[in-house]
C-alpha cells in the first residue's frame, strides 16, 4: 500500500512516498531556511509563496525517487495543522485535488502526531504503548501513546515551547538563526554547572512545563554581566541553559514512564535531534531499565515521511477525510 504525503506547515516544502506506513521509498524536503534567515525567523507570507512555487516539483521528485507514478498511489496524506495557515493551505489544496483526481482516500494528519510516527519509520520494532516527549520550536508535549491513533495528553508547556526558548536564548547570545543546534554545539564545550539557572517544575505532580521564566533568567544574567562589564562565556551560558531545560524534560518524562510502568520513552520533534537530550535520556534509561527511542536527524526535522506514516495508521483504523477538509492552524493533541 503506497501513501503519498505532503507537509507544508512551516518553512519546509516536503513530499514523501511511504509503503505500508513504515518503509520510506522517498522523502524529499526543500527547506526555505536561507530565505527566512535574513528576516530572523519564518515570515508566513513568504513561506506560502515559496510553497506554491515548489510543491509540484517536490511531488515529482518524490514520485521519481520512489520509482512510481500517480497511478500507483493508494492514499494521500497531508498535514492539516498545527502550523501557518497560508502555508498549510498550499499543501491541503494540492492534496485534495490529487485525492479527488485519482479517486483515492485522503487523510488529514496532525503534524505533532507525524513527529511521533517518525519513530515507527526509524524503529521497525517499535509499537505502542509508550511514553512520548514531543519537543520542537512550536511544541512541548508529554503523552501516553496508547495505540497508533490514540494519544493521551498528560503535560504541555504553559508558555514558551522548549525549542522557542532555545531560539530566543540563541538570539540573545548573538548566534545565527535557527539557534537550537548552535546551543547544543556550544553546550558540549561549556560548563553546565557554571551558572545556576532555575528549573521550573511547577506545582507538585504536574507534568506541564514552563520555559519563559528560564528564558528571562538567562536574559537578565546577560544584562547584568554586560552592566558589570564582565566577560560573558557563551559556551557556559549555552551549557547551563540547556541543562536547565533538559533536567526538567527528562525528569518529567521518566516520572511519567515510572507512573505508567512504561519501559519505553520515545522522543520526537526538532529538539529530539539535540545530542544533550539524547545522551541524558540514554544514560538515565540505562540506569532505570527504560529503552529510549528517537528518530535519525533527518526524520526529526519537518518531513512528509512521518505524515505518510501517521496517515497510514489512521487509514488502517478506518478513518477518512472528505474533500471539504480544512486546515487547523491551532490543532492540538487530545
Amino acid at each position, binding site marked *: 500500500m503506497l501513501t503519498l504525503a505532503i507537509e507544508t506547515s512551516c518553512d519546509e516544502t516536503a513530499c514523501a512516498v511511504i509503503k505500508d506506513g513504515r518503509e520510506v521509498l522517498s522523502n524529499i524536503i526543500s527547506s526555505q531556511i536561507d530565505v527566512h534567515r*535574513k*528576516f530572523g525567523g519564518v*515570515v508566513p*507570507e*513568504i513561506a*506560502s*509563496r515559496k*510553497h*506554491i*512555487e515548489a*510543491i*509540484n*516539483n517536490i*511531488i*515529482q521528485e518524490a514520485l521519481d525517487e520512489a520509482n512510481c507514478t*500517480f497511478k500507483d498511489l493508494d492514499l494521500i496524506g497531508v498535514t492539516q495543522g498545527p502550523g501557518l*495557515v*497560508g502555508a498549510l*493551505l*498550499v499543501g*491541503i*489544496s*494540492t492534496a*485534495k*485535488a*490529487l485525492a*479527488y*483526481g*485519482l*479517486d483515492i482516500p485522503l487523510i488529514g494528519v496532525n503534524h505533532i502526531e507525524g513527529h511521533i510516527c517518525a519513530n515507527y519509520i526509524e524503529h521497525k520494532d517499535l509499537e505502542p504503548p509508550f511514553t512520548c516527549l514531543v519537543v520542537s520550536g512550536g511544541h512541548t508535549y508529554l503523552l501516553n501513546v496508547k495505540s497508533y491513533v490514540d494519544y493521551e495528553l498528560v503535560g504541555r508547556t504553559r508558555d514558551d515551547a522548549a525549542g522557542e526558548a532555545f531560539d530566543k536564548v540563541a538570539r540573545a547570545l548573538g548566534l545565527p538563526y535557527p539557534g537550537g543546534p548552535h546551543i547544543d554545539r556550544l553546550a558540549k564545550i561549556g560548563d553546565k554547572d557554571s551558572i545556576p539557572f532555575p528549573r521550573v517544575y511547577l506545582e507538585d505532580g504536574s507534568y506541564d512545563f514552563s520555559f519563559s521564566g528560564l528564558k528571562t533568567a538567562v536574559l537578565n544574567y546577560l544584562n547584568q554581566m554586560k552592566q558589570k562589564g564582565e566577560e560573558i562565556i557563551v559556551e557556559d551560558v549555552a551549557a547551563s541553559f540547556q541543562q536547565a531545560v533538559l533536567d526538567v524534560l527528562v525528569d518529567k518524562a521518566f516520572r511519567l514512564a515510572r507512573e505508567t510502568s512504561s519501559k519505553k520513552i520515545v522522543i520526537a520533534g526538532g529538539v529530539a535531534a539535540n545530542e544533550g537530550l539524547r545522551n541524558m535520556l540514554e544514560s538515565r534509561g540505562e540506569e532505570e531499565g527504560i529503552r529510549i527511542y528517537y528518530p535519525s536527524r533527518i526524520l526529526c526535522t519537518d518531513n512528509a515521511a512521518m505524515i505518510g506514516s501517521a496517515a497510514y495508521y489512521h487509514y488502517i483504523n478506518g478513518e477518512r477525510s472528505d*474533500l*471539504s*477538509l*480544512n*486546515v487547523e492552524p491551532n490543532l492540538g493533541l487530545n
Partner: protein
Amino acid sequence: MKVLGLDTSTMMATCAVINDERLLGEFSLNQDMTHSERLVPMIKEILDNLNMKVEDIDLYGVAIGPGSFTGLRIGAATIKAFAHLFDKPMVGVSSLEALAYNLPFNEIVVPMIDARRNRVYTGIYTWEDRELKELLAPCVLPIDELIIRLKDFDSVVVNGNGTLIYREILEERLGKQVSFAPLGLNSCKASSICELARIKYEKGQLDDYFTLAPEYLRESQAQRQLREKEKETS
C-alpha cells in the same frame, strides 16, 4: 476541447466547464465558508452533474491574480495538481482581464479588486478588433489616483468588488462619466477564465504546472520592510 476554469481571487468562488464554444456548466458561490472547504467539492459537484471526471478535461484555466494572496494560492494549487496528475496543459489568466471580459462593449473598462487601505488592484482595458487591449497594465493604485486617471476618459464602465466599496466616491468624483456593471457581471466568471484560457492556449501562451505562481502585484510586508531598512542603511 473541454476546459475547466476557476477563480478564487476574491470571496467569490467560481468554477465552470466549457466545451469548445459551448458553456456546459458554471457554479459561483459567495458565502462564509472558506475556499479551502468548498472549492474541490464544488468542482466535484459540477463534474458529477456533467458526468465527467477530472481526467476528461483537456485544458485547465485559473485566475492567477491579482487578488487575495491566500485565495489565489488555493486556486493555483488545485489547478496545478489537476494538470500535473494527468499532464495536461494549463493557463493562468489575469483576474482583472477576466473581469474586463464580462463587459464586451466599445467602452473603457476598468475592473477593480479591493487591495485594502484605500487601494485597488486595477487595470484599464478597451476593446479593439473584438479583442481586449490593455491601456494600463494590472497594478495597485490608491483609489484617488485611479479616479484622477479616469477623468481623462469621456466614459468608463467599472466592475469588481472594489466598485462596491468605492461606489460613492466614484459616483461623486466621476458623475455621469462612470457606469457600474450589473450585479451578475460584477464578479469574475469562471466561464470567462475558461474562454480566455482557451484563447491563450490557441496562441501557444501556456503555463507550466511546475513553475506557475500567482501574480500578487505586491510584495509581502516583511519584504517591503526589509527593503526599506536596507535602503536606510546604505
